[in-house]
């Protein structure tokens, strides 16, 4: 099974679309924005170069979680590859565990590259303790997005999964305040943002990067979405592959 997950990772790393959109795009976006606004300081006292680092890392992680789950799963289901796996001794739960592991592993490049760009190009410097809290939180916080991707990949055809995952990803990125700082949102937009996993996911990152510890609300919302979307994904995956 480890070998199976590894092959899955190798395969995504050879996918040009993944590399461009998920790995290069957030880094480029960070560098552009940080070079314009990076010197300014937010109301919280945190530099924009740090805030943007978290936003772009969050965006990259979000994009990666969804891109490495929804479309590949939908394609494999449709093309018959999952059937090929179903007739091997590999248990069906192992397929989904491998998919989650693959998606988690593929979050790392975008997360780490944005951080490296922030440190190298913007001279961002955080105490080691904050990095140690920030990166694992932002890594594991992608679970609800991976679950959403797997749910879409189980429910939709490959052709439909592509635009659906794009729409979900952009909606989550914008509503979560990853592209525009949530401070500029109107009241309605703020209420919407409060409900999304992406806002609380990024918020978790902003708090940890600012050394403010963890807001229990952020953790609860992200974990809550992880449970709901995880349940939906499990249900839809079973429905898509069950023997009848």
């Amino acid at each position: 099974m480890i070998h199976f997950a590894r092959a899955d990772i190798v395969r995504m790393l050879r996918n040009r679309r993944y590399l461009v959109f998920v790995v290069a795009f957030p880094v480029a976006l960070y560098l552009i924005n940080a070079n314009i606004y990076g010197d300014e300081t937010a109301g919280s006292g945190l530099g924009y170069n740090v805030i943007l680092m978290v936003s772009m890392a969050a965006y990259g992680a979000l994009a990666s979680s969804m891109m490495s789950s929804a479309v590949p799963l939908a394609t494999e289901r449709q093309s018959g590859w999952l059937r090929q796996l179903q007739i091997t001794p590999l248990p069906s739960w192992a397929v989904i565990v491998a998919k989650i592991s693959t998606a988690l592993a593929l979050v790392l490049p975008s997360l780490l590259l944005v951080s490296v760009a922030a440190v190298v190009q913007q001279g961002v410097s955080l105490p080691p303790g904050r990095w140690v809290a920030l990166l694992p939180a932002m890594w594991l916080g992608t679970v609800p997005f991976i679950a959403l991707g797997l749910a879409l990949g189980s429910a939709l055809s490959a052709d439909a999964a592509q635009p659906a995952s794009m729409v979900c990803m952009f909606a989550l990125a914008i509503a979560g305040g990853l592209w525009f700082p949530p401070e500029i949102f109107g009241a309605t937009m703020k209420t919407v943002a409060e409900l999304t996993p992406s806002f609380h996911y990024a918020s978790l990152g902003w708090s940890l990067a600012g050394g403010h510890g963890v807001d229990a609300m952020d953790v609860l919302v992200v974990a809550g979405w992880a449970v709901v979307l995880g349940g939906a994904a499990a249900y839809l995956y079973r429905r898509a592959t069950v023997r009848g």
Partner: protein
Amino acid sequence: MRSTSNAVEFDHVSKHYGAVLAVDDLSLSIEPGTTVALLGPNGAGKSTSINLLLGLLLPSSGAVRVHGGTPAEAVRAGQMGAMLQNGALIPELTVKELIDLVRRLYPDPLALDELLSLADLTELAGRRAGRLSGGQAQRVRFALAVAGAPRILLLDEPTAAMDVESRLRFWASMHDYAAGGRTVLFATHQMEEADEHSDRVIVIARGRLAADGTAAQIKADAGGQAVSFVLGEQPAAGLDRLPGVTAVEVAGGTATLHTSDPDATLDGLYRGTALDVRGLTLTGADLEAAFLQLTRESR
């Protein structure tokens, strides 16, 4: 009747899809080590039967047994390998990576080099699956099917996308694999394939068993062989008394003699009559006529 020594057993198996009956009260058993062709027209229930054997579908009624256990147990034990229709590959992985990926999922797989040479892929080992031709991709799918050294190999219309040369190579690979005492069941709608590559032919039509036996038995049972020649203005009297002849048709100056023994009929035709025999053809010397007749009867 129940015997655990059979590789495959269908015990009064039916499968509906809604109102459509794809497999209709099918009972059969296959002994280990035999190569069996599952012959039938499109929509006869061949793919459904194979999916039932793999546990990808569950029967609506009846039971499917593989080496005495359920299909799911056999799959989990790594005893089954299959080439399904529309089985895709992962385009970003190389041939070697794909085969290695699948063989590692089995408890006791064939060696990677052995698989590559068995499926004639040694030279393509480093090529990405997305850049293979149709016939090459089929060879990879064959390698994936046998990667785990399964005791039972199921092939669903395996040569569908192949050109003539690929077919020859494919059947050679299949015979190499079957020679190790393994059971092979392949579905086809081509009688020549069933005739040439199996020990036993099971004909199904409309989800039912239409015939079961060696290719020779099926041909003989259906009496599907015929000798035709240009009769012209000559008299047809006496043709029905030639050895082996079961029926005579004369149409448009051509006589067609249906026969159970074409050799004896021809001998009688040349030696026992004074007819001037021209334009002689032998038809139904393959399974085709038998097959058409069998599948027509079961309607």
